[in-house]
């Protein structure tokens, strides 16, 4: 073999390895930078207290609470919907039918819609159309639901994270061996009994992965909630579905871009980013680990 061919081969391999390394390094730099600057500033007070002195002191409790409430509402909506849609695609529908094809096409496209367009959709559909309609019908025209609030923000995120849940659930359903279903059918079970007692219990880890990924995504998205319910500063916590709320990601955005004194807010800002990153990242690590387990089982099944 000619030497130069070997040489090019070595160069090419090194180049691909290097590209991989650069990407991993970028990830490490971001995480490291934020952990170094944000970590030390973290304290129990920071997590549990209300903001003080124009948000340059005190804690970020309302933002954490708002994020948790938002994501919880979203989960309650998106998990049943997403799991049911996946069950239809994999357990009920005839494979290759027009409807299945259309749903998959819609899923793929929904996942590619820019986050800011979801924000516009939330404003136009949930707030103006549904909320405004509810106000006219139930509240005699007084403003109750026709305004930005936590319910509409959560539902906007539901639409955004729906593909995540459906795709992850379907992957888990696919990992359940066909023989399990055949045995259940042979024992006289109906289709729903098979789904309810055989397929779903076997796919719990996959559904969990989808849920975690959706929660992580939902907790990190800012563009869709900017106009649908997030508030810059509120002295109270959201208690009703039509209250506005503070949110970690939006808090980061507002403090970064609109703070009058960026140097004074910088430590608190870094700590807030750190909290947000720990939240979304820890969830992601769990999801990735669970998913690689499922994929291994899928390969051996």
């Amino acid at each position: 073999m000619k030497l130069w061919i070997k040489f090019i081969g070595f160069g090419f391999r090194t180049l691909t390895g290097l590209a991989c390394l650069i990407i991993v390094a970028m990830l490490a730099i971001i995480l490291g930078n934020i952990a170094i600057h944000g970590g030390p500033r973290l304290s129990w007070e920071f997590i549990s207290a209300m903001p003080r002195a124009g948000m340059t002191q005190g804690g970020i409790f309302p933002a954490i609470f708002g994020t948790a409430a938002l994501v919880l509402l979203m989960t309650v909506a998106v998990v049943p919907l997403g799991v049911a849609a996946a069950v239809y695609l994999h357990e009920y529908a005839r494979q290759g039918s027009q409807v299945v094809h259309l749903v998959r096409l819609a899923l793929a496209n929904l996942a590619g819609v820019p986050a800011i367009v979801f924000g516009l959709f939330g404003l136009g559909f949930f707030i103006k159309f549904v909320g405004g309609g509810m106000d006219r019908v139930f509240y005699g025209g007084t403003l109750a639901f026709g305004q930005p609030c936590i319910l509409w923000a959560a539902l906007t995120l539901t639409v955004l994270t729906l593909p995540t849940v459906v795709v992850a659930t379907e992957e888990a359903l696919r990992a359940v061996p066909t023989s399990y279903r055949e045995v259940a059918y042979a024992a006289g079970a109906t289709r729903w009994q098979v789904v309810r007692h055989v397929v779903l219990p076997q796919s719990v880890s996959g559904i969990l992965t989808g849920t975690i990924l959706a929660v992580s995504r939902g907790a990190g998205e800012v563009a869709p909630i900017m106009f649908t319910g997030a508030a810059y500063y509120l002295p109270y916590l959201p208690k009703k579905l039509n209250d506005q709320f503070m949110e970690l990601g939006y808090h980061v955005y507002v403090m970064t871009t609109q703070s009058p004194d960026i140097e004074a807010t910088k430590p608190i800002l870094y700590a807030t980013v750190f909290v947000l990153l720990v939240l979304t990242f820890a969830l992601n690590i769990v999801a990735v680990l669970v998913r690689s387990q499922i994929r291994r089982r899928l390969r051996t099944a």
Partner: protein
Amino acid sequence: MDPQRNEGLLLKRGRRRGETLMETVVRGSALVVIAALVLIFIFVGKEALPLLTSAEVNREVTLETMVRPQANGQSMWQPVSEKPRYSLAPLLIGTLKVTLVALLIAIPLAILAAIFASEFAPQQLREIVKPVLELLAGIPSVVIGFFALMVVATWLQDAFGFRFRLNAITAGIGLSLAVIPIVFTVAEDALSAVPQAFRDGSLALGANPWQTAWRVVLPAAMPGVFAACVLGFGRAIGETMIVLMASGNAAMMSFDPTESFRSFSATIAAELGEVVYGSPHYHVLFFIGAFLFVMTFLLNLAGHWYVGRLRARLGGNA
């Protein structure tokens, strides 16, 4: 054989009704997915439509004044001024500028990394590399935006002394971090879908592993790799928070990547909060949103069409 055929004969009426109900519920949920996409199109489009139909809106702005280049330097985006100007040209230039920078960084890196992961990395390393790159997708874009604004901008300023601290290079680097995971994932899927027999045949004929990767596997996976680029492009033009935070948001008519700019997505995010409901400005912002939606929709369709072609080409192994 078909379990459903027996159900009608064997089940009690109540249970049969339960079965039908559950089937309706799951089918309805699947249809919600389609409905969501259609509703997005309708409700974003509905608020954009007055731009074409309403005479009141058209007194201030028409589609023609938005897209036609104005005489000497009058193509401006100044929606809140004495005489509002709504030229899309500076926003288009800004969007293309940052997208180009991001793709120039992201596509080579992601595709080379995908080749590494699917062709050269030992099994154990591959099991680590893939999840790590998936983790990159898990960083919220607001965090990347924050990092680009606070850290990357300072580094670049110190290193090159750009006139504008926030520019298309800063934002493009941030944006590339959001694009890399999607390009990597799709490209890696495509490369891994190439049957092992292709590699075995090439190696048996005396080719090196790198010759096999470059001349056999990569060309075979080409539609999928192309799809990865198209989907990455779609992600880049729609991304909002990174560009909003790291672009400087100045709507300038400049192709220079070291100058500040304003993108379509950032314009919506920055202005919709303060706009008067139902004003011409409001409808223009929805129009931009509808444009972004249609653009990303078409790019996505194209991307998935190429993935489909890859599957057809590799004979159902994908």
